[in-house]
């Protein structure tokens, strides 16, 4: 009797549970080897809204897939540091959450590079502070540089360790005297590779030479793969990552490389929904990853589709459309559109930045805007190989960090064009690949997509949030952004 009376309620409750189960977001953390399927559309919430990854041709089983399987002894997989919920990178917040959930036992915190230095006591949280506070992974580069692009190299600078707070640049095993240099960098997002591998022109204007060829395919290299451009193609990037981050002692097989490449080339990631602005592909805007999937890569925005014109329709929202929005949504959309304009049109004097002011021929200073370097349509990376020195890793422009090693660079031939004969850096960047003093401090520009999900920013995590990115540029180049322009830029970056 009672059951019969409550039958409709029970049925409704069951439907609600079912609906909730269907709409429940997938677990945020992807553990290596867990074997779930990577769906064709994968959404994750972040503080600015929802980010979406599209897998063309998906879904894809990850069981046995080398991107998702722990192929090395430390229990990590590629996905450990390239998490779908974090724009295929890894946010510092996620690292902290993972520490708390596993009490530091997740393979993410492997001694080799998930701690400040393997020589530190690994059970202590402080030994992993760089990863937990700024999302930094230790990168150990050989020193001296001996070869680049298949040619022998003799560095034209010396490197001395001024300060080694973590112990990974001194002693018998670590540091220049032991044949290596440890720097600390953010994992770069593994998505939208169609754009990062695209080649717009046959020449590298920053190096004054035609682009080198991919050693495998013979195609021209984009030069936009890694922070210091050490990998010539995805294969070399994978081999570098598997031997260091996964501690994989063997070589990846051609079949494994093909499978990882296939996955990476099919994946597109971008913010899809803004908490404040609503759906980013509505009201005439074309935000979100579908536009990335459907566009041709490698186009210079200045001679084709302007960079961030995905939001051009929000410049003039009709009164009819405006009536469908809340006042907050309307204001946010207008702000994003202004931000795109500011990004393209607000010029300032770019000074003393190698890769821009030298040796290209633009002069020092040169007046231009953000889009001068962030010039590829749809992506905001550089159409040319993007090695430039914004000062984020090098004094006097870099912020003071007492937890990073500090190196003294001494140029043995010509002085650095802007820093002189001797200068100080936390990360020599591209110079650790080329061996050239003039390249010290240069870091490859990266994709601007998916920023909302992967704080902090810049290669060393200098900017804790999007506002800090704008603030860095403001103090580096004395741009005189208004408060509204700063917020417009933050809002723009939150929807990319």
């Amino acid at each position, binding site marked *: 009797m009672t059951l019969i009376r409550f039958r409709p309620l029970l049925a409704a409750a069951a439907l609600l549970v079912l609906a909730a189960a269907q709409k429940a977001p997938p677990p945020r953390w992807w553990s290596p080897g867990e074997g779930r399927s990577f769906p064709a559309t994968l959404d994750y919430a972040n503080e600015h809204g929802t980010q979406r990854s599209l897998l063309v041709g998906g879904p894809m089983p990850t069981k046995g897939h080398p991107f998702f399987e722990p192929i090395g002894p430390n229990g990590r997989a590629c996905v450990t540091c390239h998490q779908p919920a974090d724009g295929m990178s890894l946010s510092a917040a996620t690292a902290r959450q993972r520490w708390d959930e596993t009490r530091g036992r997740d393979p993410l915190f492997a001694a080799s590079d998930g701690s400040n230095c393997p020589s530190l006591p690994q059970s202590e949280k402080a030994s992993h502070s760089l990863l937990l506070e700024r999302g930094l992974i230790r990168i150990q580069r050989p020193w001296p540089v001996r070869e680049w692009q298949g040619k022998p190299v003799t560095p034209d600078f010396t490197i001395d360790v001024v300060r080694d707070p973590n112990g990974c640049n001194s002693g018998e095993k670590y540091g220049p005297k032991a044949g290596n240099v440890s720097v600390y960098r953010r994992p770069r997002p593994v998505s939208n590779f169609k754009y990062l591998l695209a*080649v*717009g*022109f*046959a*020449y590298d*204007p920053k190096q*004054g*030479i*035609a*682009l*080198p*060829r991919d050693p495998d395919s*013979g195609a*021209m290299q984009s030069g936009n793969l890694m922070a210091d451009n050490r990998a010539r193609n995805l294969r070399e990037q994978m081999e570098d990552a598997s031997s260091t981050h996964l501690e994989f002692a063997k070589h990846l097989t051609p079949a494994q490389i093909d499978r990882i490449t296939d996955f990476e080339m099919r994946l597109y990631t971008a913010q899809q929904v803004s908490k404040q602005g609503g759906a980013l592909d509505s009201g005439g805007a074309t935000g979100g990853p579908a536009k990335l999937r459907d566009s*041709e890569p*490698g*186009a*210079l925005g200045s*001679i084709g589709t302007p960079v961030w014109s995905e939001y051009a329709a929000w410049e003039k929202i009709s009164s009819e459309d405006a009536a469908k929005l809340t006042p907050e949504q309307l204001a946010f959309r207008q702000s994003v559109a202004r931000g795109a304009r500011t990004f393209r049109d607000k*010029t300032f*004097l770019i000074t*003393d930045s190698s890769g821009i*002011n*030298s*040796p*290209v*021929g*633009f*002069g*020092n*200073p*040169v*007046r*231009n*805007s953000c889009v*001068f370097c962030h010039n590829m349509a749809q992506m905001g990376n550089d159409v040319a190989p993007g090695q430039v020195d914004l000062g984020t890793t090098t004094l006097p422009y870099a912020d003071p960090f007492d937890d990073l090693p500090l190196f003294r660079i001494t140029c043995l031939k*010509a002085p650095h*064009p*802007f820093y002189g004969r001797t200068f100080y850096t936390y990360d020599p960047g591209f110079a650790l690949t080329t061996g050239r003093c003039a390249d010290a401090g240069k870091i490859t520009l990266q994709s601007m997509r998916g920023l909302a999900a992967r704080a902090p920013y810049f290669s060393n995590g200098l900017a804790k949030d999007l506002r800090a990115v704008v603030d860095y540029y403001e103090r580096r180049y004395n741009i005189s952004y208004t408060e509204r322009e700063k917020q417009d830029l933050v809002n723009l970056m939150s929807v990319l």
Partner: protein
Amino acid sequence: MKNLSKLSTLIALAAPLSAFAAETGDYVRFVSCPVYRDADSGKKSGCWLADERASGKRYDVSQSPYKPDWNRAVLVEGLVTADSTAPCGSTVLNPVRTSILSEPCQRHMLPAEGHPGRKFVLPARNLTPLSVPRKPPAGPFAARTFPVFFEFDRAFVVYQYSDFLLDNAAQWIIAAKPAKVVVTGYAATDPESVSGVTLAERPEVALERAEIVAESLRRLIPGLIIETRMKTGAKPADLPDADGLPGQSQRRAEISAEF
């Protein structure tokens, strides 16, 4: 008597370089510290100025394909124009080249002071994106030489000038399929006194120029047979893409296709 006549001609030619104000069409060559005028007409619109100390004349040198660094001295080479608009507030040199030298300068920036500067215009010598189909050069093909030009004492292939010339050569070579290419780097190693400064390029920059051009050709045209050579003591040559500037014509590499 004949020698005296030659000498007087040389003196007449040299006169505009020092004591007297240059006139339209004159070639001026001097070393100075550059001054940046922040005339904001948008991207890449700032003005570059340089004073010829001997004459006290300030020139607008903004139209050089390779621009100054306000921290360093600059070698200016250019032709005085009759441009009366003076968008940067000074007599315009065009064509003009501004080579960055190693001597430090006090950086100096002027406000616009009402001068509009120039809105950026894409230079005529600019590379075509790879996405744009190109019509291959038409034959018949015979031995030909392509020059590529450089800044003073440097071997850097400058964006939207030297790269354009190099790329034209490469496209022609791809179509012409020569048996061999010889790249000869030149250096202006004979010392010259300019504004009281003795200037001479390093002899080794000749080979550096040949090598950088050859490496680009190897990357653009895999399998191409290339030989590099060097020549010091380069003399001015009549080469159209040097834009009538003798100093620029000396600082070059030549790509010679042999059949």
